[in-house]
């Protein structure tokens, strides 16, 4: 059992583009759930919207990367409006069901056979990142050290991804100490009280939904930049994994989503590595290769249940600022 490789692989996940994408999506979810009390179970839908709105203009119309980023943002704003208009006036659990349903609708539509020319059907898309890589300012070579060694293109994705994460974190920090943030947090605590102060609760909720949704869409773009776009990745499981990452770190905290995403991926990589290592030395020979991967998700589910019951505020959370009272 090669502990060096296992630990190195796990450490590599700390700053991988996937972790950045999860962190960004979790920050968006933190704006929704942690600060505004919106039960969004459709973050995978926002990520899919972002990914497809980025990839399709590039492939079908030859748009430059910058414009495609803009398309992802605009598409997610439109999606947020479609979700929010029917549900933000209703009870919180309605938003939960509608967002999860809308995310699934997105996945069904992009993988339908009839749209194969545009969306690639169930095969998905690839090749949309050439223009992005051509913008790469780093010359060819290896960057970083130890487990964090990247090729020039990987390094470019890592830099862009984590820059977006930092921008989003700073934005959330500034917004939540502004008057806007106080109103939004007030809505989370007691919607009627805020309404009685003359605030338009519906409009604030919509703004929060849009803000978190845009972050989700950008996370979707980061997620697909180093790989191909597969519609099967955008099922409800993705949403639940982002939720796990968020709750691990703490919902209404600045660093919670980032640290949560890091822990999520490091633990996933560690358990996968250890189980495979044990199989190699024959300790778990009754487990097949596929089953080793499934054990990791059983652990994810258990961790999710345990933290929600025993430490609902997450690692960084403040128990007073619990947003579970929605």
């Amino acid at each position, binding site marked *: 059992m090669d502990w060096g490789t296992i630990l190195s692989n796990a450490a590599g996940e700390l700053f991988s583009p996937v972790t950045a994408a999860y962190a960004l999506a979790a920050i968006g979810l933190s704006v929704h759930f942690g600060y505004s009390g919106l039960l969004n179970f459709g973050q995978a839908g926002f990520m899919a919207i972002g990914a497809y709105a980025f990839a399709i203009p590039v492939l079908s119309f030859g748009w430059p990367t910058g414009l495609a980023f803009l398309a992802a943002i605009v598409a997610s704003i439109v999606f947020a409006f479609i979700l929010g208009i029917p549900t933000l006036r209703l009870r919180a659990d309605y938003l939960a*069901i509608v967002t999860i349903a809308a995310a699934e609708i997105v996945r069904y539509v992009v*993988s339908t056979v*009839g749209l194969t020319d545009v969306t690639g059907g169930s095969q998905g898309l690839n090749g949309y990142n050439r223009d992005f890589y051509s913008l790469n300012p780093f010359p060819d070579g290896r960057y970083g050290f130890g487990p964090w060694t990247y090729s020039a293109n990987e390094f470019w994705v890592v830099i862009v991804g984590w820059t977006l994460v930092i921008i989003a974190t700073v934005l959330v920090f500034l917004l939540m100490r502004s008057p806007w943030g106080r109103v939004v947090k007030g809505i989370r605590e007691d919607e009627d009280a805020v309404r009685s102060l003359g605030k338009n609760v519906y409009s604030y909720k919509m703004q929060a939904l849009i803000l978190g949704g845009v972050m989700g869409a950008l996370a979707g773009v980061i997620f697909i930049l180093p790989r191909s776009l597969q519609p099967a990745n955008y099922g409800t499981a993705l949403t639940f994994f982002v939720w796990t990452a968020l709750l691990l770190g703490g919902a209404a905290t600045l660093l919670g989503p980032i640290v949560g995403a890091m822990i999520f991926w490091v633990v996933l990589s560690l358990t996968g590595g250890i189980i495979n290592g044990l199989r190699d030395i024959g300790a778990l020979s009754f487990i097949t290769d596929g089953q080793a991967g499934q054990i990791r*998700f059983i652990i994810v589910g258990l961790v999710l249940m345990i933290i929600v019951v025993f430490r609902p505020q997450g690692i960084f959370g403040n128990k007073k600022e619990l947003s579970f009272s929605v």
Partner: protein
Amino acid sequence: MNALTPARSSVHRLHLVLAAVIIAVLALLTAPMAASAATEPTESAAPVEPAPVGTEAPDAGAGADAGFTIGGIIRDGQEPVEGVDILVEGDGFSETGTTGDDGRWSVPVPAAGQYEATLDVDTLPEGASPRDPDNVTRQVTVGTTSTVNVLFPLGEATTSTVSIWDTIFTRLVYGLIFGLLLALAAIGISLIFGTTGVNNFAHGEMLTFGALGFYLFTTLLGWNVILALIVTLALSAAFGYLQDTVLFKPMRRRGVGLTQVLIVTIGLSIVVRYLYLFFFGGGTNNIASGITGNVSFGPVTITLVSLISAGVSIVILVLVGLFLTRTRIGKATRAVSDNAALAAASGINVDRIIRIVWTLAGLLTGLSGILYGLFRGVSWDLGFLILLLLFAAVTLGGLGSAFGALVGSLIIGVATELSTIIIPPDLRYAVALIVLIVVLLVRPQGVLGRRERVG
């Protein structure tokens, strides 16, 4: 039992709804039976596009004669067929045309008018058959154009004669059966939500539990079907009971918030689902129930198993309805749904009711899983795949209303199946979810929900 009086008006409504639904279903299932003997069940379940590869129209002016000509090309796949006779008759005229080595045939006719072209099936080569064997005669009108082409598609017999109404009727029956299966599971969700306020995201796994259990006992272990059914149902009920005792009751004791419980159900769903995958693998398997055969009535052909499923669902749904409206425990259940604190104050043991509800939900959902597994095959994530349809059904009918769940399920079942007539079948679940969102826009409390503020 004062807490029950407000529910009395809804009891009448429930009866009406139940009666209407049962009558509608029975009428659909029995009325066309009489006509079944006359019709041949040639249609397959799915409307198959007739692929236009069998024939091809000849070039304009294929008939060399200056006069009027009836003709065409006969091909089997891409191969032209030689030596096929076509009899053209009309108004005292009768002549037979034979296809040449390029598959073309043409018959010059003396004048404009009505003719009848008949394909002589006996002259077709071995292995080739008309795609539509009942209809090898074409009415041909020779008018102003000198050459009229007649098509005789060859190939596999398919559904070229299915009318739009037959298709709609077939889809409707399938939708109702699907809706009844959904209803069994949806009532479980609705009862749990009503009594505890929990949106149970692990409900799909209870469905899979029934399907996998039945598959394990019948197909893998080869047990008797009845025995397997009883054991699976008992285990399903125990599964529901255990979920409450081990997980949800302690959480209620701790005062864990509803949103936290909701996320716990998500975690439970992930754990249980991947355990299924771990032990049963990722494929889709069919249950060897020993019940085979098809039943056809009118244009619809369904498997005997589906028909039995529908019948069982109706009987169980009626029993659940009677349980909720007639028995003391059923009334107590609805009282807890209505207002748990008031129910407790009037002497109802709320914890006991919730325990019964979980057990009942496990039983019903397990049964739904068994029937669904017979209907569409068993896989590790079958429950998770239709979980959203269940939520859509429950929300459509009105959260917390058991009879709303029944109506919502039937709507969802019929809507998903009917939509495949117009849109690609891989989008049919999306249609159900769009229906859900539209209903929330127009009538947020659901079809049968009480008109109260839900915002």
